[in-house]
């Protein structure tokens, strides 16, 4: 695991294994999710992989009625919106993620600050497969 480069390919490969991973600066201890190859706090380049617990709070969200074609293919339409948002992880960093298991027809009932836990959305097969990071209410 230590050999994986600190980039988005590794980040997404970990997601396929249902692991939410970040990089921690060996010099100053700052934590980054998704991982960064350079510490933007102290400038050091020595990083190590750290796994997140996968729990946090909803910082911001939206329920999208007009999505891009790839979401339309997943069945999301004006009458069936999807939710996506920003999660503040317990460990500190923020991530953008799809928000599942909420009533997107009643967005006024979704609350900023709500407790959330990770959920992995596996889409497609083999080389064409990808896993998307999502969260759902605890």
């Amino acid at each position, binding site marked *: 695991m230590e050999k994986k480069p600190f980039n988005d390919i590794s980040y997404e490969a970990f997601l396929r294994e249902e692991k939410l991973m970040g990089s921690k600066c060996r010099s100053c201890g700052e934590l980054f*999710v998704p991982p960064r190859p350079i510490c933007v706090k102290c400038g050091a380049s020595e990083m190590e992989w750290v796994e997140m617990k996968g729990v946090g709070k909803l*910082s*911001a969200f939206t*329920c*999208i009625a007009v*999505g*891009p074609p790839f979401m*339309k293919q997943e069945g999301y339409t004006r009458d069936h919106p999807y939710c996506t948002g920003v999660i503040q992880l317990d460990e500190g960093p*923020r991530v953008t993620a799809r928000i599942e298991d909420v009533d997107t027809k009643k967005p006024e009932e979704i609350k900023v*600050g709500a407790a959330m836990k990770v959920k992995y959305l596996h889409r497609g097969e083999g080389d064409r497969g990808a896993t998307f990071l999502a969260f759902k209410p605890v």
Partner: protein
Amino acid sequence: MKRPRKLGRGVALVGVGMSKFGMFRDRDSKDLFAEAFRNMIASVDKGADPQDIDALYVGNFSNDFFIHQAHWGPIVSDLIGHVPKPATRTEGACASSALALREGIFAIASGFYDMVLVGGVEEMSKRSTEEVAEGLALATAPYEGRAAFTFPGVFGAVATAYFDRYGASREHLMNVTIKSHNNAALNPRAQIKATIRSMMESKRRRASEKGLPEPTWQDEKEFLRDQDANPVVAWPMHLFDCCPISDGASCALLVGEELARRFTDAPLYVVGMGQGSGSGFHAADDLTTFQATKYAAEEAYSMSGLKPEDVQFSEVHDCFSIAELIHMEDLGFFKPGQAYKAVEEGATRRDGSKPINTSGGLKCKGHPVGATGVAQLMEVWEQLRGEAGERQLPIKGLRIGAAHNLGGTGGTCTFTIFERR
């Protein structure tokens, strides 16, 4: 920033032009740029010979995606007969032509050129709404795109964070929208040249003509609360919180300060300019502010020696209603969490203490993304020269106006301050 910014040589704006903005089946990017160019040349009071243009910079975000054609520098150069002189495309998402403006200013300030054409163009409407959403989302931060954020979605999320933090609501955003439409109704160049009230009237009339029951909205807000009239796009962003899909082009002529009066007795001088960059949501400390705007403003204010209160009016990048609130706070016009109250009290109307988006803003003037940065100069130009007609600000000694442009989800922001002397 170690020291205040300054230009090595002063730079003046001596002409500005725009094409019509709209959704055009029968018009293309070249045609639109040609119209903006002709209008720009016609705006130069004492005339300008296009043969004297030393270089051109043209902003374009994503015609690559929208119409499958890249490399717009030489295309525009060829169009206006500028070949073989240099032409450069700039890209900063929705701030693409503000970057063209900056490159043009630098090129003259360095002493390398004397006269530079800057502009922008975008041709978006030949794609479906979903494809436009996908194309624009190319400019989100990488992880935002993976999470299926669209642009209305990004600003919808910003709105939920702003509401939660400051206690604002959709009702406050409606004040922004109503004001934009009131201004646009007086702007002959606006893509949506109508007040909300006039749109309500025409919908009533159409219902009556079809023999359907007439809607009974009491006022603009009741209309905006109506889910049929104002459907959700990306909650809490509804149709009337969003700028339209637009095709269009813009163009401006810059010269060395000492040459300006050969072209006009009323040039505008660049007194402050700034640009910043920003991270995506995942790395932002605060979801209710854009750090790139704050940095751009700091550069522009320190260069000019001006304070936010000295800026008498400004165009700001209101791609969405919530964006106008955030930008006004980031630019220092209002304190954090106060902009929505100021709008409610009328401070940003034409007769208010800080008129904002007197053109109608991106919301109503239209937002062909790569053309917007330079198109914003049109309003600054007309207001400062007293040529804004029915929109003319009733301010004595109108002298300082500004334009703020945002690209992506706050990845590229600029702020430019102009003075009439």
